[in-house]
């Protein structure tokens, strides 16, 4: 039996797997291996709207598509901002693009940080390394409507002082009285005046009310495991912790199977999960 031809199906992201073309408006080096690209639609005035934590499938000509979280301001519809670490062929090609270079973009895809849902609560943002990139849109939103939230804390850990993303913004945020920002490095250089030690050690010292806190965590999986332990031991309820997971991804729309994480697909059920949803999976190795 054939299936009925569906004509009234609403258009969905990924319905067509071909990317829209974007042009590089600017590219800035963040660290020795990471770059931030401001890209704008080639044939449209505005980008599709996105929510903090979502990602795009970004195509480098001849190299392939890779999932990259959006690191810009969700209120800005003129551009997508992507912070990319050059680790493979496609990401290296993307980081090598020049101003006005062309790239492909499909998206946005995936779930988002519970920014609206956190109104009235303290918000603790814990980022590790490049994990700050998908959290930055959430910070923009939190700070844009600062009065809706209790305390806001940003705890950021990186390998060395040279790996710190968005240093200018961090400096600006640190100067704000309504935001507690702590940055720590695993390995200090001699000129580093800041904290040395892993990011998890900051959780014990940050000021927030664990009973009324939403924690948003993104970083390497091990870092998230230990961060979770610290948050729970401080008394943050399990359903107040949100994690952003990463897996291989080829399509972004639940068709290729690659991003399966336990019973879920990270591309559509994630990347942002409440910890309670993935608790059993999170504890299993090589899942």
């Amino acid at each position, binding site marked *: 039996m054939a299936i009925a031809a569906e004509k009234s199906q609403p258009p*969905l992201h*990924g319905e*067509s797997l071909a990317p829209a*073309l974007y042009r590089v408006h600017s590219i800035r080096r963040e660290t020795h291996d990471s770059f931030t690209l401001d890209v704008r639609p080639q044939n449209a005035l505005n980008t599709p709207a996105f929510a903090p934590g979502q990602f795009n499938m970004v195509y480098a000509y*001849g190299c392939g598509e890779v999932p990259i979280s959006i690191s810009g301001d969700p209120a800005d519809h003129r551009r997508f901002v992507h912070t990319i670490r050059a680790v493979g062929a496609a990401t290296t090609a993307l980081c090598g693009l020049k101003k006005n270079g062309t790239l492909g973009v499909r998206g946005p*895809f995936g779930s988002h940080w519970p920014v609206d849902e956190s109104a009235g609560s303290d918000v603790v943002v814990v980022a590790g390394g490049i994990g700050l990139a998908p959290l930055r849109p959430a910070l923009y939103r939190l700070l844009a409507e600062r009065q809706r939230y209790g305390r806001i804390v940003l705890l950021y850990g990186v390998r060395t002082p040279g790996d710190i993303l968005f240093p200018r913004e961090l400096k600006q945020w640190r100067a704000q009285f309504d935001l507690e920002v702590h940055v720590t490095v695993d390995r200090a250089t001699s000129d580093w005046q800041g904290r040395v030690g892993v990011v998890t050690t900051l959780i014990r010292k940050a000021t927030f009310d664990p009973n009324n806190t939403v924690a948003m965590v993104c970083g390497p999986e091990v870092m998230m495991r230990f961060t979770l332990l610290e948050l729970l031991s401080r008394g943050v309820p399990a359903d107040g912790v949100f994690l952003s997971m990463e897996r*291989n991804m080829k399509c972004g729309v639940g068709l290729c199977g*690659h991003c399966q994480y336990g019973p*879920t697909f990270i591309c559509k059920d994630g990347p942002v999960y409440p910890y309670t949803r993935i608790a059993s999976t999170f504890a299993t190795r090589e*899942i």
Partner: protein
Amino acid sequence: MPGNDSNQRCVTFESEQLQSLLDAVQGRGYEVFGPRVRDNTIVLDRLSSITELPIGAGTDQNNARFRLTSRQDQAFFSYTVGAQSWKRYLHEPTLRLWNAQRDDGGFKVDANQSLPPKQAFVGVRPCELNAILALDRVLLHGVAADSAYRSRREKTLIVAVDCGVAGGTCFCTSMGTGPRASSGYDLALTEIIEGDRHYFVARAETELGAEILEGIPHSVPTEAERTAAENVVASAAAHMGRTVDAANIRDLLVRNPSHSRWDQVATRCMTCGNCTMVCPTCFCTTTTDVTDLAGEHAEHCRLWDSCFTLDYSYIHGGAVRSSAKSRFRQWLTHKFGIWFDQFGQSGCVGCGRCITWCPAGIDVTEELAALREGNPPGNCPPIRKETPRGNA
């Protein structure tokens, strides 16, 4: 079972008329595909005449074993499935998704899809029919539909054939997918050989199917013919080569990611991915990009992929599932377990291909039984019912 057919068009036709049926399908503009014997096995290919069908061919299947046998009769459909499944004609092994062309410093994308021809599958086994329905669920009814699959699926006519013989690795009765085709077809045939008489009892589920039957010489099935058809299927059901206790199987797998059996099977599994390549419901794909030497032209292609490769779970720095154990566990747990969470049904249709074609002779039914042994029901996370999130 027969009660379901009350509102179906049901006829009897003699075996010689099978060609008329084929002609009627072809006459409606369908390219016909069906089983054939080639290279000492059963393959699927274009079919123009019923003489190309595996007449008188049987199959001997077991762990890592597939042999063609000769039958004493002229049965068209007394073989059990070969390595290939219909998936290849709906969810193609390789597919060019789109092209990119260098242009004025940048590039252009051409995503025009050529429209596939109408295709008819003749000889679709009930397990395979259920596999197609499982693929429909995955590729058409998620957050996004696979447009390539849809365009082919919309133009596919299905002539199912009930099983009268069960293979040595078959377990469709355990999975509730056979040996009788229950729905999803245009036409379903039961092949009956009684002494010198060789005939088919056919039922149509669609208008098109009924119209085709109407056009070939036929008669109204007698009570005896209906009973004979039931007996054919009952005989297959009684001779399943394998069984699986499917009760709460999802919970069993979800609860046991650390079972010692995974370590045992990992010593045998070569992670070759054969099981995923022959599986009629494995849907995973990867993409690859190729350019010409000058770099003027690039193609973005999609290929079948297997969760048994290291590349499958590779993220910068390494593969998430680096051990054979974790990859076998992923496959089996997905197929029989979390497929329920994702798609509301099992991912296994009991065709037995993964048992037949595993070079190490790993038998999923044996593995599942071993996992169950000494494993009383316990707590495990419930299947989550929810509306898709995201795309906000």
